[in-house]
């Protein structure tokens, strides 16, 4: 790198430093003057009985603003479609291949811990109704299990290639089907009848958990057989 290049990079960084510091100070001046606002907490506390769950964040996520979550699951589906179309055989330098010799401690330990991780993710799914937790947290834990199994050289089961595509799409399809059926009965999009709301939310969350787990595992390290 010549002296001219070094000077150019130094000037560029000083300029960017001044620019970002200036923007930071402007935003700071704005947020210090933000007015106090009660927000929507009281409205949600008043309507929590109709939502079918007692955790406020889950109620917002799957009932009051269910359409946000519907679109979010759609975004996940788009991301996985994008990744699968960009990923070709030669970009995958570290595709699934058995590493020899197999690490005995690692594989024994991951066999031991796998049912526990599955239990934790099921607990998170159930806990979402009344405490912090829910479908996405449970799905992320389950995806971590898939990544762990792949890294510890566990051979993937025969049926995993068959169910992967279906499981990836299941969350969005189940959610969309429920939204469609509800609209056909003459209510607004995702307006659950309050006596069945708890069961509907739990059903959607189970589908989203399975779907999230397979999507995240597919995005970061797919645990499948070579084609």
């Amino acid at each position: 790198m010549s002296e001219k290049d070094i000077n150019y990079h130094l000037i560029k960084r000083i300029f960017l430093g001044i620019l970002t510091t200036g923007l930071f100070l402007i935003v700071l001046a704005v947020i210090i003057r933000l007015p106090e606002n009660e927000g929507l907490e009281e409205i949600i506390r008043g309507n929590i009985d109709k939502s079918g769950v007692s955790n406020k964040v889950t109620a917002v996520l799957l009932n009051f603003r269910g359409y946000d979550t519907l679109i979010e699951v759609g975004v996940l589906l788009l991301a996985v479609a994008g990744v699968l179309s960009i990923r070709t055989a030669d970009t995958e330098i570290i595709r699934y291949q058995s590493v020899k010799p197999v690490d005995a401690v690692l594989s024994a330990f991951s066999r031991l811990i796998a049912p526990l991780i599955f239990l934790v993710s099921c607990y998170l799914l159930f806990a979402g109704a009344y405490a912090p937790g829910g479908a996405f947290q449970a799905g992320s834990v389950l995806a971590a299990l898939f990544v762990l199994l792949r890294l510890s050289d566990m051979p993937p089961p025969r049926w995993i290639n068959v169910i992967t595509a279906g499981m990836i799409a299941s969350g969005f399809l189940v959610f969309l089907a429920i939204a469609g059926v509800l609209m056909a009965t003459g209510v607004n999009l995702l307006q659950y009848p309050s006596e069945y709301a708890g069961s509907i939310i739990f059903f959607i969350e189970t589908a989203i958990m399975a779907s999230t787990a397979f999507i995240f595992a597919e995005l970061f390290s797919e645990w499948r057989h070579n084609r």
Partner: protein
Amino acid sequence: MKTTMLFSIAGIAVFFIGLYCLMAYRHLLKKIIAVNVMGTGVFLFIVSIAARANILQPDPVPHAMVLTGIVVTVSATAFGLALFKRIYSETGKPYLDNEDK
């Protein structure tokens, strides 16, 4: 000064540190990490805004937004990494060289 205001300022600071790194470095992995840092700053800011009126009864709507945002950030990062891997395998360079000719 309230604690929540401190968290708001910290969130904005983290956002601008990420913005600086996004613009200052050419390496695409650094850019992906910078975008993640920016997102984390925004999440910290939104969560601190939610607790502004009453720290014991925070507004759950921003919390749900942040939860949505985290999931979308993870999938966007994965998409960015897939793009990075494709660019690296096509050009052999970890940056885009259509500038600084």
